[in-house]
């Protein structure tokens, strides 16, 4: 039952914040960091047990297909660890970074967002998945517009309109599924889908993929992302880019693999992924004004890469997708966190304003280089291992279509090298216009950034540290009969 704390604690913390703020305003700002740290501890402590066998928790005394249940498998717990780690680091950063009052609201919304994300990866009930998804989306709409400036408000309403249409689609999909199978438990649905009319099943699957695809930023559904990620406060961008869209991708993968066993749609998913990747990278390449917009487009590209890897539909492919998810989360969270204070110090979002910054703040410059090189896929960093495993998994399929897609991926990587090298060149090799010195980042920002950079290097050098967990998570996603058995067979 300890695993329920992973969801209960952040929720409790979120509603404690306004109460604590009544007594002591400053103390309430530390609650998110505290809660996420304990979440990290709990999830790491559960890890050995979950690696042996997944934990299934049924709520309120009912048994599996009727009760709402949480399935804490290697995949769910691995993502929960990632969420609490990034959530913790961003909360530490947020204590110093957020200046706009009322700060309690910000911290509360961050915690509800993280609750939604954790709930999404742990739940085993499809309606519950929708509810947690809505908790996540509502918090992220509100956080996007948190600064109340022109851009943030506009981005938030765009995000809200597109997100709500997606949510409505998800709900229609769930209604169809419930109408045809008579159950909401994902394992129970998975056990029943084989006997259902394929047309209805296809409709339900498409509706669910479209709905979650809005959050996962799959190609035609990602118009909200560059606006929202670039206009939100930087700590929020880090969460949106490092956690929110990844949970969207998780939901798509869970729906396609576990619930529907949709092998026919995998190639479509892979092609959509490559289109997303190419469009994201090309849009990032032509960005000159706004560093955060560049990073947002790069996020779209990376999500495309994850989708492509999920579309390879083998153990190795899913493993590569999860590895890419981890390395993208670490690197992009770092970049958004670093760019937040840089924009604040320099006073401009323009790329040209970063000239010579690498020499003025050498430590931050080095950390940014680590993240950028990892995203490109340069060897000693985590990004190399993930991209390498994607290429290997795709080639192992021995199919012309996947080999062709990988050629396009390599082309996109060249584009990626183009704009990221331009960024590094501006930062390190361009002479600054003014000679005024820029201070290094404050400690509350440096610590999270350093931890993220250290993790990128450690995972890059010792990929075995996480590959065992990811391997098991991947087979947990691909082998659906085992999942059905762990949830339903225990009766």
């Amino acid at each position, binding site marked *: 039952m300890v695993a329920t704390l992973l969801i209960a604690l952040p929720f409790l913390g979120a509603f404690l914040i306004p109460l604590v703020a009544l007594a002591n305003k400053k103390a309430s700002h530390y609650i998110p960091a505290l809660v996420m740290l304990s979440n990290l501890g709990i999830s790491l402590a559960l890890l050995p047990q979950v690696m042996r066998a997944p934990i299934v928790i049924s709520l309120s005394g009912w048994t599996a297909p009727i009760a709402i249940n949480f399935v804490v498998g290697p995949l769910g717990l691995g993502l929960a660890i990632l969420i609490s780690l990034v959530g913790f680091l961003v909360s530490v950063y947020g204590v110093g970074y957020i200046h706009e009052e009322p700060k309690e609201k910000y911290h509360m919304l961050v915690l509800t967002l993280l609750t939604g994300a954790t709930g999404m990866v742990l739940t085993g009930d499809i*309606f519950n998945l929708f*509810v947690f998804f*809505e908790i996540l989306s*509502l918090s992220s*709409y*509100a956080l996007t*517009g948190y600064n*109340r400036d*022109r*851009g943030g*408000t*506009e*981005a*938030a*309403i*765009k995000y*809200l*309109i597109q997100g*709500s*249409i997606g*949510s*409505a689609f998800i*709900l*229609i999909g*769930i*209604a169809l599924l*419930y*109408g*045809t199978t008579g159950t*909401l438990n994902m394992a129970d649905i998975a056990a029943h889908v084989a006997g259902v009319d394929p047309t*209805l099943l296809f409709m339900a699957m498409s509706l669910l993929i479209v709905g979650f695809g809005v959050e996962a930023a799959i190609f035609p559904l990602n*118009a909200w992302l*560059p*606006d929202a990620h*670039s*206009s939100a406060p930087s700590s929020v961008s880090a969460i949106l880019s490092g956690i929110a869209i990844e949970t969207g991708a998780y939901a798509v993968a869970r729906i396609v693999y576990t619930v529907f066993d949709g092998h026919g749609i995998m190639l479509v998913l892979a092609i959509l992924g490559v289109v997303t990747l190419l469009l994201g990278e090309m849009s990032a390449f032509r960005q000159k004004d706004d560093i955060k917009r560049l990073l947002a487009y790069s996020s779209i590209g990376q999500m495309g890469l994850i989708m492509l890897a999920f579309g390879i539909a083998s153990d190795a492919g899913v493993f590569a997708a999860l590895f890419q998810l981890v390395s993208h989360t670490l690197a992009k969270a770092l970049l958004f966190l670093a760019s937040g204070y840089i924009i604040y110090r320099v006073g401009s979002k323009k790329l040209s304003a970063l000239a010579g910054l690498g020499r003025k703040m050498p430590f931050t410059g080095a950390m940014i280089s680590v993240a950028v090189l990892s995203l490109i896929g340069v060897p000693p960093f985590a990004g190399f291992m993930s991209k390498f495993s994607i290429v290997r998994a795709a080639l192992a399929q021995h199919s012309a279509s996947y080999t062709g897609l990988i050629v396009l991926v390599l082309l996109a990587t060249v584009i990626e090298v183009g704009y990221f090298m331009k960024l590094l060149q501006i930062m390190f090799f361009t002479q600054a216009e003014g000679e005024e010195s820029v201070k290094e980042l404050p400690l509350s920002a440096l610590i999270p950034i350093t931890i993220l950079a250290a993790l990128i290097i450690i995972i890059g050098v010792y990929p075995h540290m996480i590959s065992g967990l990811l391997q098991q998570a991947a087979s947990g996603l691909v082998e659906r009969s085992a999942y059905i058995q762990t949830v339903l067979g225990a009766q």
Partner: protein
Amino acid sequence: MTIGNPMMYVGAVGLIMIGLFTVLSKRNLIKIIVGLTLLDTGVNVLLIAIGYIHNRTAPIVTRTYTDPTKMVDPIPQALVLTAIVIGLGVTALALALAIRVYGHYKTLDTRKIRGLKW
């Protein structure tokens, strides 16, 4: 899937389509938000229609009324209650944001709200 009265499905899908059309074609932010609520309502009606069984009553157990075979499926109704609450939250947030957008741009016309570019 026991198909009840087809008119309920027609109504539900009709509401969903009207909502989608409103969101996609209208230029006024408030009208778009109205479209979103129509879309939500349509989905809720669809859920209720799926759980409805002809000639049965509301699934409320009282002291004299305990036979579950005479009631409709209660789960979709529970889902709809949750969905209504979520819809309320989304609508409230959307209207709050619309007020703030109006404060910045002095208009609700989405053609003129173009501070951000693709």
